[in-house]
């Protein structure tokens, strides 16, 4: 029925034939009609580089994942929902555990498909608001998406929830609500935010590594109890390797974005990076191939000097990319090249672990990777390091207003970075997933002014050098 749309999303003719009935059924459950598909086509054309086959394949993987998720129960699978930000090793291990198990973070999949492409998230948010995450008190729209989709029944009722419980307090609270009110079993993965930020990205104390490792081990044991699916260590290590290959493929594309002119937009790369970091099954199974095609295409652009921004355009770091594509597109349209986000890896954070036991190794790597696992000072250190590594001319800090951890340090980050690195920082406040009361255009005046400042600063620096 939607062959043209599916073709736009990189589906091969035989795939369209094979997947069409499943996609039709999925669209019917999600109440996606022709108008919605037309809207999605428009958004894809506006926000994504569909000249690139690799990018179309990535879009296709997200659509396939949406279908797999919506139909998982109907297709006889046990359903497990992990959370976001992900513990990617856990996500990969469960996603690849068995053909009879479906695993994903539904909030991630829906935000990158139903919200980003189809713009149909509002009924889900409204459902969540009626069932425990009320409006007006700054509940995270990401978690509202998770709760609303499950309660509304557009994604299957899971057999197990595995929330990570430390970066975000609302994730375990939401899953706790799903347990108390709907009886869904939960395996919480706990950790603590008691490490001083100055220590990032050095080794975290062994007792903390042991604690986090034990929590992950317990969650996997509960997964086996609930689903009957055994996950021996060898299988988990294999899955972790698959996840690492996907992340490495994503990182290689990110490294190509060092080039001037910028060869791939942030909206495009966003879908690539989340595909890797969220460890969704389709990404793990087919992602490396899609990213390999994309890397080849981006490499060619770099070699040919082709870019999505003008050569010499000021480069900026964007903290958090909202799920409507509009903000990143607007920033790009104002002549700034978003070359990196706060999720990018750093050399210190990527250093191999000295721990050899599986879960302690994973715990150590997971915690050192991001400043988020330390006190808030580490966020600032990480931003400073990324700004230096990517030689950016400014930072745009989009603060998802209901994210508590992002409420703590942005004001200090602006002060420190402007003083120490001498580049401007713009603080914006909005919503990551809920666009009922927030619109990127509301921020246009501030972003325009910021763009002018960044351009003027860059020109002045260039003048000084010459």
């Amino acid at each position, binding site marked *: 029925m939607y062959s043209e749309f599916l073709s736009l999303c990189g589906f091969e003719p035989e795939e369209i034939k094979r997947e069409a009935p499943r996609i039709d059924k999925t669209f019917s459950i999600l109440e996606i009609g022709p108008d919605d598909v037309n809207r999605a086509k428009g958004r894809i054309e506006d926000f994504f580089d569909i000249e690139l086959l690799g990018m179309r394949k990535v879009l296709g993987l997200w659509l396939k994942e949406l279908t797999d998720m919506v139909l998982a129960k109907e297709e006889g699978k046990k359903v497990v929902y992990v959370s976001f930000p992900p513990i990617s090793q856990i996500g990969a291990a469960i996603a690849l555990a068995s053909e009879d198990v479906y695993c994903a973070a539904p909030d991630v999949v829906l935000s990158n498909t139903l919200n980003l492409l189809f713009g149909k998230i509002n009924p889900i948010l409204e459902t969540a608001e009626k069932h425990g*995450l009320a409006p007006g008190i700054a509940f995270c729209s990401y978690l509202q998406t998770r709760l609303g989709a499950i309660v509304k029944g557009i994604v299957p009722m899971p057999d197990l929830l595995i929330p990570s419980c430390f970066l975000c307090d609302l994730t375990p609270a939401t899953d706790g609500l799903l347990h*108390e009110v709907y009886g869904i079993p939960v395996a919480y993965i706990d950790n603590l935010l008691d490490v001083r*930020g100055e220590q990032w990205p050095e080794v975290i104390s062994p007792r903390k590594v042991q604690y986090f490792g034990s929590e992950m081990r317990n969650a996997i044991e509960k997964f086996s109890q609930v689903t009957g699916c055994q996950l021996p260590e060898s299988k988990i290590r294999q899955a972790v390797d698959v996840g690492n290959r996907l992340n490495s493929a994503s990182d290689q594309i990110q490294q190509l974005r060092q080039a001037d002119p910028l060869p791939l937009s942030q909206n495009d790369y966003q879908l690539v990076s989340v595909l890797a970091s969220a460890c969704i099954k389709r990404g793990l199974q087919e992602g490396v191939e899609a990213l390999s095609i994309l890397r080849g295409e981006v490499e060619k652009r770099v070699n040919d000097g082709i870019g999505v921004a003008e050569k010499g355009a000021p480069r900026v770091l964007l903290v958090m990319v909202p799920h409507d594509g509009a903000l990143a597109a607007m920033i790009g349209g104002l002549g700034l090249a978003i070359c990196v986000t706060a999720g990018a890896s750093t050399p210190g954070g990527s250093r191999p672990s000295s721990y050899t036991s599986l879960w302690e190794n994973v715990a150590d790597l997971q915690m050192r990777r991001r400043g988020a696992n330390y006190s808030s000072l580490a966020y600032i250190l990480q931003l400073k390091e990324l700004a230096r590594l990517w030689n950016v001319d400014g930072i745009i800090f989009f*603060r998802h207003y209901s994210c508590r951890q992002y409420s703590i340090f942005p004001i200090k980050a602006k002060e420190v970075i402007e003083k120490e690195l001498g580049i401007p920082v713009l603080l914006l406040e909005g919503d990551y997933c809920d666009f009922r009361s927030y619109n990127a255009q509301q921020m246009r005046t501030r972003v325009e002014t910021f763009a002018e400042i960044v351009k003027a600063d860059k020109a002045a620096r260039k003048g000084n050098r010459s």
Partner: protein
Amino acid sequence: MRRLLTHSRSRLLELREMRHRGTKIIGYIPNGYMPEELVHACGAVPVALVRGGDSAPVAASASCLARFLDTFCRTQIGYRILKEEPLYQMLDLLIVPVTDNHVRAIADSWDFYTDVEVFRLGVPHVKTTHGFKYYLEGINLVKEHLERLTGTEITEQRLREEIDLANKVRNLLKEISLMRRSECPPISGKDFIKLSHNSLYADRHTLLEVLESLCEELKVKEAPSSGGPRVLLTGSTLALGDSKVVDLLEEAGASIVIEEFCEGLRNYWQTVDAEGDLMRALANSYFARRVPGAFFRGAAKERFDFLLKLVKDFKVSGVVWYSLMYRDSYDVEGYIFHKVLEKLNIPMLRLSSDYDVAETGSFRTRIETFVGTIKKG
């Protein structure tokens, strides 16, 4: 009560003089996970950062923190910035038992904007064996840190003495609190809350004397029945100075017969067993046996069972769930607890405050309606 209030008024001067003489003043966030006994045992003085209810420090905090964090937690850096509250200016160390991002914001903002050293005590969110071990190791780190700071070793004997003294205070507070199970409570909710708040920074020997004498006094006091609905007041934080809801409830004719808060009030329900390994005993009391806050994972049943027992034991006819703005875990738990109480036909009123004076009018209307509804049965 009068003696305690007089003592409280002079306590600041006393603390200031003690600090001049070299005594270390140790601030902590009173969410029930910081064993004060450790501080006393090394000759330092613990003071709880427990002030709240005022809109000025909330406004002041906006220069450091975004608005969408728990109001009490934002307020703690606000008081420091305003420099109007002397207690917030005299700390040698701030110990923050980190339970969630809101409390983390206190630690991080004091790190960013003050020169006071901050110690983060990690509180696991699950009561597992390794959670207990982690907490126990954490309080051992606190002990070592205090010993280094004060230059005083915390001996077993000294710690035992402090535990015994703290147990006496807890037992007396519990005895007084339990008197409120009677049809005619001899002490009002407002006075008990005042007692609890003042206990958080009073000299403990004076406090003990006051509690002993008050306890005897209350045993023989003939109190008239208020006749109003008996209310359980619960939620996230009830700070010193945050009297809006308490006042409005009593003005509307309700009687607060019991309160349960994670932060702000002293937890007196369980004593520390001063036998065997004392650090383990502290961890057992402060972590393992403590009724979990809403930020614990999968612990709602334990907390709800405790609250329902309070409802039964104190013959409560209505529950007021009072939380501060943006404290996610309490907002969600309040939603679930409301459903639990609905099944039992017990009315519950949910209120969220941002310490804004403009709330008073709407709170008054809602509280009067709630109390009126209970009275009508």
